């Protein structure tokens, strides 16, 4: 199936930003996209696969270990034998709602066990998503126990399997991306704040913008190959920016004054725990890296605050104000000139 190019998506700036920031700094902790139907949430996430730079992997390793890595390797690659490197597209795994637990975490390879009496682990979707993205559309409809499991693995970066006489652990570091429509039932609050960033996706009500969306969609459906080719230059340019930003992100500095403001902002909003501050900092670094800055400015911090904090506010049922607006209000309070 042809994939609509990421760079050809009209609008949806915050969603695109959130995905790119996560691609640059996976430690941000995933993205939750909430919003109306027909806004192209799935399109954007599926488009990411074709945008991201290829990864280098050990040939034949089912867990896609990186040949150059020293730590976080699977059992086989840890032994340090000589390996052959090869390239593959960045994994973006789309988790179907009907998936069963054994296929998500992996299980005993039945065919092999029966044919040869050999006990071998058949890796699941978590292994397939390692070093990439795991996407769940309509996350509010996935079984609770599966969602909890995914969040645990995403946080620890390791999948531990103890079943059918197998005892396996393998690295599973991926960015969890969920989408949902709040009109079809609110998400469990425990689940909300375990996602690093939260985006409120809305359809544009701007006529010219909507026309452009429909026009591009139409052109893509008429001739996908030609459409993708038309956008290939922009795709390559953005890919280069991501590669450069990844190389730079660890060296981006965070001035004390900016950090102090970040802490103050979280306190003003009453965002629980340290997760808010950490995400805010990491997101700000990734955003700075993406725009080619060497240190995080106040402006950058302000621009990522709604993404990092909007889902961490205590809910007040009688206050109708949109969470994003509440964050922005707090931002303008904290950042008095």
């Amino acid at each position, binding site marked *: 199936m042809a994939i609509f190019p990421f760079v050809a998506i009209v609008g949806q700036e915050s969603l695109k930003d959130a995905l790119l920031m996560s691609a640059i700094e996976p430690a941000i902790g995933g993205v939750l996209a909430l919003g109306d139907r027909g806004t192209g949430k799935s399109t954007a996430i599926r488009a990411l696969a074709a945008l991201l730079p290829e990864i280098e992997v050990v040939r034949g390793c089912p867990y896609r270990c990186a040949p150059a890595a020293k730590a976080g390797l699977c059992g086989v690659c840890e032994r340090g034998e000589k390996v052959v490197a090869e390239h593959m597209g960045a994994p973006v795994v789309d988790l179907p709602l*009907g998936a069963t637990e054994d*296929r998500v975490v992996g299980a005993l390879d039945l065919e092999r066990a029966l044919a040869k009496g050999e006990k071998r682990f058949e890796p699941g979707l978590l292994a397939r998503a390692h070093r990439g993205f795991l996407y769940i559309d309509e996350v509010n409809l996935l079984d609770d126990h599966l969602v909890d499991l995914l969040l645990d693995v995403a946080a620890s970066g390791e999948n531990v399997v103890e079943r059918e006489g197998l005892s396996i652990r393998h690295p599973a570091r991926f960015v969890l991306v969920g989408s949902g429509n709040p009109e079809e039932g609110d998400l469990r609050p425990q689940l909300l704040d375990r996602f690093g960033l939260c985006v409120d996706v809305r359809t544009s009500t701007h006529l010219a913008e909507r026309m452009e969306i429909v026009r591009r969609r139409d052109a893509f459906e008429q001739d996908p190959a030609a459409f993708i080719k038309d956008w290939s230059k922009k795709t390559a340019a953005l890919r280069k920016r991501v590669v450069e930003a990844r190389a730079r992100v660890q060296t981006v500095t965070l001035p004390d004054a900016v950090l102090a403001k970040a802490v103050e902002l979280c306190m003003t909003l009453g965002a629980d725990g340290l997760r808010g501050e950490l995400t805010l900092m990491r997101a700000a670094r990734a955003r700075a890296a993406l725009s080619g800055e060497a240190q995080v400015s106040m402006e950058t911090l302000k621009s990522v605050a709604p993404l990092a904090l909007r889902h961490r506010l205590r809910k007040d049922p009688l206050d109708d104000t949109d969470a994003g607006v509440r964050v922005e209000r707090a931002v303008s309070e904290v950042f008095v000139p």
Partner: protein
Amino acid sequence: MTLAAAPLSADRQASRDAFERIDAARWGQADLAVALLALMPHRLKGAIFEGASPELAGLLQDRLAVRLGSGALLHRMPVSITDDRLVGGLDLAATLAAGRPVAETGLLTRANGGVLIVPMAERLPGRAAAQLARVIDTGEVETERDGLSMRAEARFVTLAFADPDEAGERLPAGLGDRLAFGLSLQGVSPARPRGEALSVEVLAAARAKLPQVRVPDDLIEALIDAALRLGIRSLRAPSFCLAAACGIAALAGRDTITDADATLASELVYASRALVQLEAPPPPPPAPDPPDTNDDMNDSSKPQPEPDELTELLVEAVRVRVSLDMAARRQTPCQRTRQEVPAGKSGDMVDSRRRGSRIGARAGDPRRDGRLDLLSTLRTAAPWQRIREMPAGGAVISVRAADFRVKRFRHRSEAVVIFVVDASGSSAMNRLAEAKGAIELLLSGCYSRRESVALIAFRKEGADLLLSPTRSLTRVKRSLSRLPGGGGTPLAAGIAAAAQLVRIERRKRKAPHVVFLSDGQGNIALDGSPGRERAGQDARDMARKLKALQEPVLFFDISRRPSAEAELISTEMGAIYRPLPIADAARVSRDVRSLLLD
């Protein structure tokens, strides 16, 4: 609609003729929708038909299959379908016979190249609908189940049939958005067909013509603008509408799209979507500026453009269509409301409901974690049979503790709290506001998220379901931000509507709870006529019927001083009675929680 046997007066004859003409037109549009689906199945995806009689539904399915040609088959998707039947999984019998895992394809894979029929689509659970929606989007089924990992192409046309009679139930919105057409056939009689079927030659000619149809820019603009003005936010709708307009032109053998083509396409695509929005408060007018102000497209647009002629034409056509559909809906279902479900039928329901509906299986110990799921357990054990040693005593299958699967049920008491609120007279707004506050408090306060809430308001001549059962705080806020109020007090209609909703929710295996906010003094009878005596009698009758359903009811007496009438009607319906002289959302919410739910 049954017609009286008595001779009709000239007036009634004329109005009957008018109705027949409208019905014929509605059938014609349904038939056209099916022709368009056959012409461009991959772009238009499918249709939803509301209130179609079984005969008409059958006719539409058959015509679609014939027009698609090359042996397109019909596949039915039952509402209760399980994940493994839907997307495939391990074939238990074949696996046992072969001694190795054998896969079984699911319904969605088998439907490839054919037609998927979804009857009673309004009852389709969100999860099944979401899986179907995804396959419609991607054109393939991905199965990750029972140790199997499969991918298969799945492109089909979906025909969903919904029955709008079931108040409060509606098609899962995510699915409706993905199918191009939404048409009401409510009240269209199966006995009155319906024109000649489209010939195969015309369709073949249209297929050849289709690539040549040109779309002028101002048409795209008008279609998108019209969608915005009708409050349709999804961008799938204008795309569908554009494709449909091309198809209509191609069917007529033209390579240009006329205004009439565009109007017809808008009726087919927009009318059902606009309807959803009309029930909710009107959306804000199109914003002159997009959220991000640095967008370069800003300069090219005028700040607040006037709709052009074509846009206005399209919007008007859809509006007319929507009001005709609403009129048809009002005519039919009210008769059925009075039709009571036989009392004996509900008895066994009460028991089975407590267990909730099954939603799957997981590994576990049946002694500790609940009931054994035999089929899933066998399925887990099946592939191992060849290498397992058979236990002594002539056993045919060896099951070990690790194979045990236990059933998972939807939460035992997935409660639905139905608020029934007196919205008559001058204090209506006040009471409705309290009910709204209580609903929001209830929803936001429940951490387990296992309760949903509905709101019925009664005023003037009848009762309206203002909020169908929902757990979404967002939807509550959207649909309650403008509430109607005033007029007489049709208490009986309010109680009847509550009883009706109780029955619907029970059929969905939910546990309904009813909360009244009323002074117990009705003055409008069930048939809409004024008069205290009849109204009171009707209210007591309805109250007894509600009591017969044996569900918990809480009655808040909102009169200034506790009244005998309120207490009487509360007793008749078997309710817990609470005087509430001062409106207080927090207290209502607290009492509902402590008296009904906990």
